[in-house]
């Protein structure tokens, strides 16, 4: 939203994606390094948490940078 003095909605989206991506990536890496005996999910070998977390983190950081309040001002 392009309104003077208001932080862009896209910045909030970026924060959300980046934080969630970082948490998911960290959890995925932990499971990659310490694989459980009984993973509990199908296709565990694909380690979706690692690459999906990384994708969200990258997109989130791009949004945070592009729509950072300091850049807008």
């Amino acid at each position: 939203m392009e309104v003077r003095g208001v932080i862009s909605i896209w910045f909030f989206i970026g924060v959300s994606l980046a934080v969630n991506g970082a948490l998911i990536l960290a959890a995925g890496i932990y499971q990659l390094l310490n694989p459980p005996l009984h993973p509990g999910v199908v296709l565990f070998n694909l380690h979706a948490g690692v690459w999906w977390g990384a994708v969200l983190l990258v997109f989130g950081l791009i949004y945070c940078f592009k729509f950072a309040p300091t850049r807008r001002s």
Partner: protein
Amino acid sequence: MTLPLAAEVPTRLVHLSPVDVVIVAFYFALVLSIGWYLRGRANTGEDFFMAGREMTAWVAGLSFLSANLGALELMGWAGSAYQYGILATHWYWIGAIPAMLFLALVMMPFYYISKTHSVPGYLKLRFGEPSRALSAISFAFMTVLMSGVNMFAMAKVMQIVLGWDINFSIWVSSITVAIYVTLGGLRSAIFNEVLQFFLIWAGALLIPILGLYEAGGWGNLKLQIAQRTSEQYVHLWSGLGSFTTNPMGIHWTGIVFGLGAVISMGYWTTDFLVVQRILAAKDIRSAEMAPIIGAGFKMMVPFIVILPGLIGLAVLPEKLVPESVAAVTGGHSYNDVLPLMLARYCGPGLLGLGVTALIAGFMSGMAGNVSAFTTVWTYDIYRPLINSKSSDHHYVNMGRWTTIIGVLISVGTAYLVMQFASIMDYVQALFSFFIAPLFGTVLLGMLWKRATGAGGFFGLLCGTLSSIAMWAWVKVDPAALRYVALSPHAKGLAQDMYQALWSFIVCVLVTVAVSLATKPIAEAELTGLVYGLTTVPSIGDVPLYQKPLFWAAAVVVVFFILNIVFW
């Protein structure tokens, strides 16, 4: 979506790890922070109720779509895909795309030029106070009740999926929504709807990706579904030539004329819950582009809703059953398919994001209901009928208090539904009574200058009453379904389609007849409200790729390609 109200609650479907809980908690912290941050931006009526009318096309478009992308819809339609196959996609394609484009190109200019605050507000300008009062009171009443029904349904889902206490879910979600809407008004609701849009895609997109990988691609998935059910589960149109050759028991006329031409048109063009988001657009081009952007993304939603249901048909070892059966046997129902797929593929972290997406979908849906209720109550009921001479500041305060009261009424409704389960069915049915006739009234109001105030009012009234009468007739005598839906083989969804179609026709016929029998409205009074008497402002000299018509054409092309590919 129906739920096992009085039944034993089965064992929870998923267990959250600490990182999942952190992700859910972060979501709540973020939405409250947004509400707090926006608290100083909602001081005038235009700010609080219309978000300052300064939304870009993208924000308004994603918000417009998100207002309909609630958690119950996601879970319910994934369940319908498991139950009826790919036919459920009709509610996302023909049941949405033509209506969204119609709103953008035909109706939105009238809403926007008239500068109305709401759909009932347009009826006031076009047909006079009685039509507004009828529409506003029915909308406000039903919206807040629906919010309560959805609140209870979602709390029940949280109990089934996560094992959370119902009271905890109801109060935590209600208080959060009340805080951020009271503080930031419609702008806060829209911010959170856009956030929800991204969370839903981030949380749900992995399921079809991993599901298709497990199934061995779309071709293998179709083969597996055909083996476990029938080939008609993966065809959109080829089985609709007869009521008996498709899993839904519906004929193509019901889909095209009932769903595509009436129900979806009514919902997407006159339900103020979604239209309010577009009215907040910053200019006429944004207002026209927003539904087109929404339509583009709407076509993709089946990828995260319908496809998981179809994948569930192929890969889940157990057979899911109707709610009524699951309530007795303790098994999983159709509506559990999305959480089951979530639990099947998503480990720590991913599961938290998926659950957050469901919670976000629910809360933004509730915020949408409450913000629409607040606007209609303040501008279309309180101001014209109770107190018309107060200051803008007074109406903003009324809006804030109405937000809190609306949430409390919703909570009360949720507890009422908990005690009397059948209320849920009645409220959901009641809501559907108003949509199709309202579309008839607004459509004639915009396109036919001869329609009069009395015609509009009595058309709306008779259309609504006819819808109630048909519903009651089938309720009392289920055999009547063969007359309402044109076939003894028709099922519940088919009844909805034809009931809407008939009530729309009644509304149009009565409006035309009464209008022709009453004195026409002077043309000078209809300027800016009716086609032929309104000059739509130019969107300016913009390149082709910025023109709404260009993107609408692109959406139409993709729409036809998709329907042919999955014929």
